[in-house]
């Protein structure tokens, strides 16, 4: 799995275009959720890897996001759900870059298709080496966000 800092940056960079800071935070939290759900099932509930695979599917992300959005207040629940789901789908897209010998880095179409999908650009263990690049992208995104804020003022 790519580290969650890479996932954070992948969601936070487009997040500069979201004005509501709470929705922006939910977009980033949404990108954490598939791994938190998967590792929770695997480590805490002691399930097999195949049981948690659906946490990295489009449908699984929708259900996790809906469950999570019920914990935020009613007035922002709908946009919160959309932000959480968008974050989860960004997570799946980022995971697809991993190389897994053609077996697929995740199965986004479960339960309709169990076929694994991958783009296969990078050894999953080497994603951690992208952190300096991630940090540079995050810094650029935060700078851009400040400029937008100044222009709007």
């Amino acid at each position: 799995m790519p580290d969650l800092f890479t996932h954070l940056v992948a969601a936070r960079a487009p997040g500069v275009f979201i004005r509501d800071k709470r929705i922006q935070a939910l977009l980033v939290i949404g990108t954490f959720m598939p791994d938190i759900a998967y590792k929770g099932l695997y480590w805490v509930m002691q399930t097999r890897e195949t049981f948690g695979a659906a946490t990295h599917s489009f449908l699984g992300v929708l259900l996790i996001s809906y469950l999570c959005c019920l914990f935020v207040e009613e007035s922002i629940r709908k946009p919160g759900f959309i932000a959480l789901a968008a974050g989860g789908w960004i997570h799946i897209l980022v995971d697809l870059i991993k190389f897994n010998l053609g077996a697929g880095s995740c199965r986004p179409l479960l339960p309709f298709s169990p076929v694994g999908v991958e783009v296969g650009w990078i050894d999953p263990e080497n994603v951690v080496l992208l952190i300096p690049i991630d940090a540079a992208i995050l810094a650029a995104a935060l700078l851009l966000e400040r400029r937008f804020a100044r222009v709007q003022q």
Partner: protein
Amino acid sequence: MFSDRLWILKAATALGLLALLCGQSHLQLAERSPQVELVALSPDSFRGHVFHLAGQRVVAADARSFQIGTSVGPLRLLTPTPPPVESYVTINARAVGIRTLEVVDLFVHSGYAWKRPLNYGISILTVIGYLWLVRRRFRWQPQNGVIRGRY
């Protein structure tokens, strides 16, 4: 769907559907990708089946094969280019006999032993750090059962 009405029922339904999805997916995947340990327990049933094994530690190696550890003991993998002992590999391998598979594809991960813990460490710090940073955007009100926005 997004109102507070019947909140607990909605949460239970979402959780139930998620469990159903995970269970259904598990059944599909277990049939498509059975556990490699079955090669040791029932070799004839799985002869010719290609298994995918990710992040496996090499416990022994010789000129024509190497071994990985499993919950039912070591499995032997035949290959003309065995990786060094203690390295971590991802493999596609075809079952050819009792506790024996033939490697179809092999990938050796460099630095797995330090990169994986670093990945987990960074991930845990990222989640804790980010939630700490955005905590002021929300108010935690467990007595009401929801996290409320501050604005």
